[in-house]
């Protein structure tokens, strides 16, 4: 096992290297750089731009250096925890992201718990009552959740919450509490606003999870050990919980790879519609305005989390599922 983990860790290094090169290429792909966008913006507002100042800025940020040198500075900075400098915010990337990270993680964690709390009972019910009206009805609702574009659902929920509960439009708290210290009524205001993004982001994930849990559980329920257990007189509830459910749980673990980055990226489009102060809109904005270090660090960070998540889920799967063997390898 230790050997396997070490091997996986070792293979992560070239993967991350290639990813970092790709990220750098991607953030360089759009024509021009941030300064050009910035200058164009100033000029469109009728302000003159001093070429000396532009050249100074360009040298200051290293934009005049060749590409590979810029990459080297950026990548080596990443290794020691320096993610570069955000042009737009005029702050180091660490500080810009830090503010928003907390709220993003809160929303994501609550959403994940919500998704699981809904998907689990429904998935089990649908599998144990296959082809019943309940199964069809719940699957259909799940499908609708899957098919509705999130941003539209967010808009409608926002409107309904405003009309029926008087919740202020957008944001994660009432405007009165922004930049205020944390107090109990601020916390309540956050709770009041939190359920909309949680439900909106949750619905699409729930549908997928219900379907997979149902499919996996159905496969297990047909196996012979279930028949054996039933023949021995085990209670149906206990039976399902004890054996097939556990077996069908593997995909939850396999999901960690995609779960980790989604905690940080926080459903970008929904966040834009709801104007949530999370990291998602910031990253999209950075990509659009070519705030390259901010965007690059975000992308790199998310990709890194995916790689780590996939590795974690592989290791966990190998530990939890005795059928997965690491040594030997199959002949076919």
């Amino acid at each position, binding site marked *: 096992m230790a050997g396997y983990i070490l091997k996986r860790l070792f293979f992560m290094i070239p993967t991350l290297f290639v990813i970092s090169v790709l990220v750098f290429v991607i953030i360089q792909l759009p024509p021009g750089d941030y300064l050009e966008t910035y200058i164009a913006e100033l000029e469109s507002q009728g302000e003159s731009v001093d070429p000396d100042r532009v050249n100074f800025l360009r040298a200051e940020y290293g934009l005049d250096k060749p590409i590979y040198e810029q990459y080297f500075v950026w990548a080596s900075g990443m290794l020691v925890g320096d993610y570069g400098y955000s042009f737009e915010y005029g702050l180091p990337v660490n500080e810009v992201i830090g503010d928003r990270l907390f709220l993003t993680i809160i929303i994501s964690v609550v959403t994940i718990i919500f998704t699981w709390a809904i998907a689990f009972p429904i998935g089990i019910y649908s599998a144990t009552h296959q082809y019943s009206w309940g199964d069809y009805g719940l699957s259909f609702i799940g*499908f609708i959740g899957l*098919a*509705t574009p999130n941003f539209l659902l967010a808009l409608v929920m926002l409107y309904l919450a405003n009309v029926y509960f008087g919740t202020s439009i957008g944001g994660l708290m009432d405007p009165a509490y922004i930049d205020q210290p944390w107090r109990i009524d601020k916390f309540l205001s956050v709770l009041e606003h939190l359920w909309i993004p949680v439900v909106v982001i949750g619905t699409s994930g729930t549908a997928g999870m219900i379907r997979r849990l149902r499919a996996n559980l159905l496969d297990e329920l047909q196996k012979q050990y279930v028949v054996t257990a039933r023949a021995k007189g085990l209670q149906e509830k206990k039976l399902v919980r004890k054996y097939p459910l556990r077996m069908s749980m593997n995909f939850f673990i396999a999901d960690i790879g995609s779960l980790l980055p989604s905690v940080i990226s926080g459903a970008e489009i929904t966040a834009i519609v709801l104007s949530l102060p999370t990291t998602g809109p910031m990253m999209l904005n950075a990509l659009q305005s070519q705030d390259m270090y901010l965007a690059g660090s975000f*992308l790199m960070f998310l990709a890194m989390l*995916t790689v780590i998540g996939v590795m974690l889920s592989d290791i966990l799967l190998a530990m939890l599922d005795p059928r997965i063997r690491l040594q030997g390898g199959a002949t076919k």
Partner: protein
Amino acid sequence: MSMHYVSEAPFDAHSVEQLTPEQEKLYLASQWRLMWLKLKQHRLAVGSSVVLIIIYLLALFCEFLSPYNLHTRHTDYIYAPPQRVHVFHEGEFVGPFVYGYRYQLNMENLKREYTPDTQNIQKLRFFCRGDGYRFWGLFETDVHFVCPASDGYLFLFGTDRLGRDMYSRILHGAKISLTIGLVGIALSFILGIVIGGVAGYYGGVVDNVIQRLIEILRSFPELPLWMALSATLPVTWSPILVFFGITLILALLDWTGLARAVRSKLLSLREEDYCTAAQLMGARPRRIIGRHLLPGFMSHLIASASLSIPGMILGETALSFLGLGLRPPITSWGVLLNEAQNINVVALYPWLMLPVVPVIIVILAFNFLGDGLRDAADPYK
């Protein structure tokens, strides 16, 4: 001595093993026929495919079926709500007609208010002359299935901020929204089969490199990658080129799942005896993959492809919503929904959200059809 019944017919020792004509048909059916037989039993999938065919036909004849052209403006009727089609007027049969609108600007909140004018009866005309268009780019015509009364108007789904008829726009938008999924899936299908096939057949170093490549591509968050790539499309490109660019971007990020499926299947199939036999007879890899291995799980691939079309349609919607996707004058459902971005629309002009209805229907239909195909393609069920 009691009498026994003795059959006169000659004794056939194989009668038990003989198949009824129905059984024989089933056992001798080709793989595709089996799949079709199974699919027919999946009612939801059959219903969905009918719905899809209808929607594709609607898109094909959108110019004919819509009362107006894509860009026809009615400057007197901006943000007009949907009109209801009536058949009876004050208990009297008139045939399908709509009431005209009385327009008034509410000076308090500056909202345009339209009230149906029950004196103004506008009978609908059928197979009538209206806006001119080029049918399939072949010939000029101006025949429409339905038109408003000669000096009236017809807004079945209301109008938008420029007074354009939403019903016509949704029909025209279907053309782009529906093809983007198909073209995209065709591209990613080719990529997936070629790359996955090479990885699975050759194995070893090639497989390893391709596997890492797929891993890397998959570890990027989808939306930012789309954004970054679509930001690289030159501004000077014509809208139709942008359309193909966006399709290509969607496909470029979609093939990885398919390639993985192809690879894992090929890895197990290439050890089969019939594959070894083909190799011994000197068949080239291309022939072995294309002729002997791929058909073995083609049905599976098609099923999984039809399941990934919805993702592409939603992806286009999301990109267009962010203003990074298609640009007007190319109109898709995503471009239409781009107008429904703010809360005012939901509160004042909810009919601008109507394009979401066909989006949901198409995505559900593709999902159900894909599910049915997948079940039908599985020979062990």
